[in-house]
């Protein structure tokens, strides 16, 4: 498997990898380790605006790279805004093979789950 330079950069540096602790942290996850892809986002939110984000992922390099990039873009965005790019745009940005597009939907689901968990707070 060959990866784009951008994918390799984010896979190797993984900005935003980890978890957030504390009161009011929004957390959402999607996928399953047993099926090979699992992603979790933690969001620290103030007045509806994301202050910080972290992710954990049991996933392929493409999925890890995209999750890392999304996490990096998160600060300053409104909680209810969608991902900074569509799945199609993310696929192109990171040269994700078409067979793996479903994994980006797992990222989208995890992000949505984290954002929607705030509705219960």
């Amino acid at each position, binding site marked *: *498997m060959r*990866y784009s330079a951008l994918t390799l950069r984010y*896979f190797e540096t*993984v900005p935003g*990898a*980890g*978890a957030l602790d504390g009161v009011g942290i929004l957390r959402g996850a999607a996928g399953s*380790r*047993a099926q*090979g*892809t*699992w992603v*979790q986002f933690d969001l620290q939110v103030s007045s509806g605006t994301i202050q910080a984000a972290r992710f*954990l*992922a*049991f*996933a*392929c*390099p493409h999925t*890890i790279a995209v999750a890392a990039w999304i996490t990096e873009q998160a600060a300053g965005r409104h909680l209810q805004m969608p991902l900074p790019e569509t799945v199609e745009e993310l696929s192109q940005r990171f040269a994700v*093979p*078409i*067979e*793996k597009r479903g994994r980006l939907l797992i990222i989208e689901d995890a992000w949505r789950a984290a954002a929607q968990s705030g509705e219960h707070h």
Partner: protein
Amino acid sequence: MNSLKVASRPVYLDHAATTPVDPRVAAAMAQCLTAEGEFGNPGSTSHDYGDAAATLVEKARAQVAASVGAHSDEVIWTSGATEANNLAIFGAAEHYAKSGRHIVTSRTEHKAVLDPCRELQRRGWRVTYLAPDGDGLIDPAQVAAALQPDTVLVSIMHVNNEIGVVQDVAAIAAICARHGGAWLHVDAAQSAGKCAVDFAGFGVNLMSLSAHKAYGPKGVGALLVSRRDRGQHGDAAGGARSFAHTHIHLQALHFGGGQERGLRAGTVPTHQVVGMGLAFELADAGRKAEVARLGGLRERLWQGLQLLGGTFRNGAAAHSVPQLLNVSFEGVEGESLLAAVRGRLAVSTGSACTSALQEPSYVLRALGRGEVLSESSLRFGLGRTTCEQDIDTALAVVTEAVSRLRRISGA
């Protein structure tokens, strides 16, 4: 041999996939290519050029035969082990089609055996796929139980290419001989030239060999076709079967020249077979010491990997070749693991990764490993170029990669 000790290149631990050609082998091959050397067609024995090439071809045949306990006239040159496997399986199935249409093999064979078997199924043959135990071993009793009156071929590999376990092919050969109608083919691509192989002593009827796994060139291999009488034929399985021949015969798959006893038409590539012959001869020299050296290095690697925790050795340690170690790592995704070590370490997952979606190893799945652990495995193939420093580098690289991926996954 220090050709892989280039500082900027990753440590090469994929000798089970292929090996570098020994420089002495490369030099011998080069002597057969140009006008100054023996470039003649070994089939053109009407002149000195062809005669000289034919002499080299027969010398190489004798070298390979001596290395694996066979007679020279039992060596049929092929383009590699895949072609040898195809010739053995299709050649035997077609020749004995009137005697029976049942074949026995195992679930952990190389694709070069499994795919021909599946093709024969498509053409109407029945194939029994034996399941190994959790260590990857086939109990010869399983073979005995699977044999049917119309079984014509059993195909069991000597050394597994992913986990390195050694099957008891001599015991299986004895079972096949007792059956009377089933011939035994052994894929020895991972063993010949690396560990002790005794074609006659094992009592095997057909054996596939590869040159490039043993520091020879790619593109050449051989099928050993036994000319020994089996001695016992006919109704041993209870049927009224009889055979016109007492040693195995094959239906040719290639036609057009009658080379290789009519079993493999086509001009014999002198340089390739000279390379294979010398590679096998060189492999025999000092093999005992090399086996001991590699066994020590493999254990050093395994001891170090165990410190990570959540590591699982695949295949029976007590029944495996010293040059191969297969380990699953808990808490890491397989493709990411391979990507994380790439650039510093050349290893493989052992699974056929022919698409963008990495498939879990069917060999490890057959051993009962779960899907995730089957995918998160690395195959370390040690070889002549491997030294202690390589093992220590591999340990450092894998330890860093697994630890990093476990942190990312929250494991």
